[in-house]
């Protein structure tokens, strides 16, 4: 967590008096702009995409299975003769939306645990840290498969499982971030004022942790997308009749042997959004790092 200390210090080390109270707003570079454009396009698809779908995602529109783009519909058909374009639009909602909910669940639980552990200390910190250690020593994919074996794969189970696998890792990161912030004088002053734990967490720790946690959120979000659609790809995630990009890859895998691109399309869509988010995360991360000696750049 070395990089965080530099970042926290940056807030108080403004150039002029005016700048001191304003957060430096770094300019977006090209890759970050591309990332934001990709994310915005995807969010737009989630919001209003289905309005433009020519068919219902489960309507069989043609006898031609694995039709090439242009033959039937805009992007062709899948293995059952359903319109691929419509299914892509509806699938965006499941893939992008559910992953978002899972990430938020992971962050709410993880941040609550991590911040409390950092600020409360003592036995509470020890207990939380040990539980987190054990959870992390468990590969996420295995945890998910075991829970699915037990509880079946309903959307609630899936989203909560992915959320919980995130929670332990978020708890560890947010604890480290909160520890860095908690050693500052302003937190000490707040403690001396007699503020409650909740108030310190909300008014001192939280506002200062937003920046590093935003990057972590982006990273976790891409994991959620890859993870949930991965489970759907295995046939153990989202179940039909809902459309999901991961599930569409699985459904159309057989079409590959006839040279159909139907399986590649949803897989590419997932890749594009995860690349987009990672471009933003990368830019966010570059804002917080320490500077390398200019001599080394030569």
């Amino acid at each position, binding site marked *: 967590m070395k990089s965080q200390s530099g970042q926290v210090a940056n807030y108080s080390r403004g150039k002029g008096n005016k700048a001191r109270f304003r957060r430096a707003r770094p300019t977006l570079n090209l890759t970050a702009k591309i990332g934001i454009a990709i994310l915005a396009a995807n969010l737009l698809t989630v919001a209003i995409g289905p309005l433009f779908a020519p068919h219902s995602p489960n309507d069989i529109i043609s006898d031609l299975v694995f039709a090439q783009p242009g033959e039937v519909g805009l992007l062709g058909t899948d293995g059952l003769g359903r319109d691929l374009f419509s299914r892509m639009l509806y699938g965006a909602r499941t893939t992008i939306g559910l992953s978002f909910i899972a990430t938020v669940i992971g962050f709410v639980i993880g941040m609550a645990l991590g911040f409390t552990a950092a600020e409360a200390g003592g036995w509470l910190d020890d207990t939380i840290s040990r539980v987190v250690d054990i959870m992390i020593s468990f*590969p996420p994919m295995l945890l998910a498969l075991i829970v699915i074996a037990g509880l079946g794969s309903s959307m609630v189970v899936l989203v909560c499982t992915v959320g919980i696998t995130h929670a332990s890792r978020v708890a560890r990161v947010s604890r480290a971030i909160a520890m860095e912030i908690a050693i500052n004088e302003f937190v000490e002053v707040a403690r001396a004022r007699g503020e409650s734990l909740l108030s310190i967490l909300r008014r001192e720790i939280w506002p200062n942790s937003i920046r590093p946690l935003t990057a972590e959120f982006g990273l976790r979000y891409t994991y959620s997308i890859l993870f949930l659609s991965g489970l759907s790809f295995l046939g153990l995630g989202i179940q039909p009749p809902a459309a999901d990009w991961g599930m569409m890859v699985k459904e159309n895998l057989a079409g590959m042997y006839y040279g159909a691109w139907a399986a590649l399309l949803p897989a590419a869509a997932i890749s594009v959004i995860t690349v987009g988010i990672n471009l933003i995360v990368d830019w966010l991360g570059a804002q917080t790092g320490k500077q390398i000696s200019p001599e080394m750049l030569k």
Partner: protein
Amino acid sequence: MALFLTKRLALGILTLWAVSVLVFTGTELLPGDVATAILGQGATPETVAALRDQMGLDRPALERYFAWIGNMIQGDMGQSVASGRSIGSIMQDRVYNTFLLAGVTALVSVPLALLLGIVSVIYPEGVLDRSISMSSLVLISLPEYFTGVALILGFAVTWHLFPAVVYSSQFTSFWQTMRSLTLPVITLTVAILAHMVRMTRAAILDVLRSAYVEMALLKGVPKGRIILRHALPNALSPVINVVAINLGYLVSGVVLVEAIFSYPGLGRLLTDSVANRDIPLVQAVAMVFCVVYVLLNLIADILVMMTNPRLRAKK
């Protein structure tokens, strides 16, 4: 050092125990009864009772846990509910296949990742560094099935270079085996390589920012020497951890990659048994994966200690 080893081993065993509790309770979370869930709603009460009796479900959960873990330690993993065969014999070949896949991937990806990581810090922010870092950022974001599907479309369907589906019967000679493994190994390598490259680069760069590197620069030490002699040894421990994390990720990766290529390994066995709700089989395969995962972390921690003179010296 002996104390550290004992402590670390004790922690490893504790983790394994916690994992076994998680595996057991996770599969027993089911509201109602595992037997009903396996057989479905249409099962007659007699068959449910018979299965319940076979699985010993009438006994309390704690008693079943100790019986299960006791047998597991002795190497008896029980019987598959779906096929009735002993789990040990089902897993035998598949354990070998999966370790073959993961092992070859590790042999390809780890040296490649270290090399690319070191090469990219020679000129930080230079053209080479930027292109490695950009392409690794893109690779990191690709799901396994995208890489896999793209590779199959290119190298198996369009050009018939490598098989798209892997069977054990293809493993006749060394070259034949390698040919079958090519596409799965590339897919897995893509999945873990980028992360390792980025972290190796970050770990070395972090050391390059330190005061003693600046000191060495001021003394006039050539750059190659600074990276290899001053920075790399001190960056080793984070790099080892990253390698361990990514080899641990192979555990999840093989599940997906084996599904893409219908590879006859443990990952596909796990997916199939989850889909069939073959609970004893799920538990056994999950435990094998977890043991490997915990062992990898254990080895990584010991290696980290051996590369750190301060820890090594403490007797």
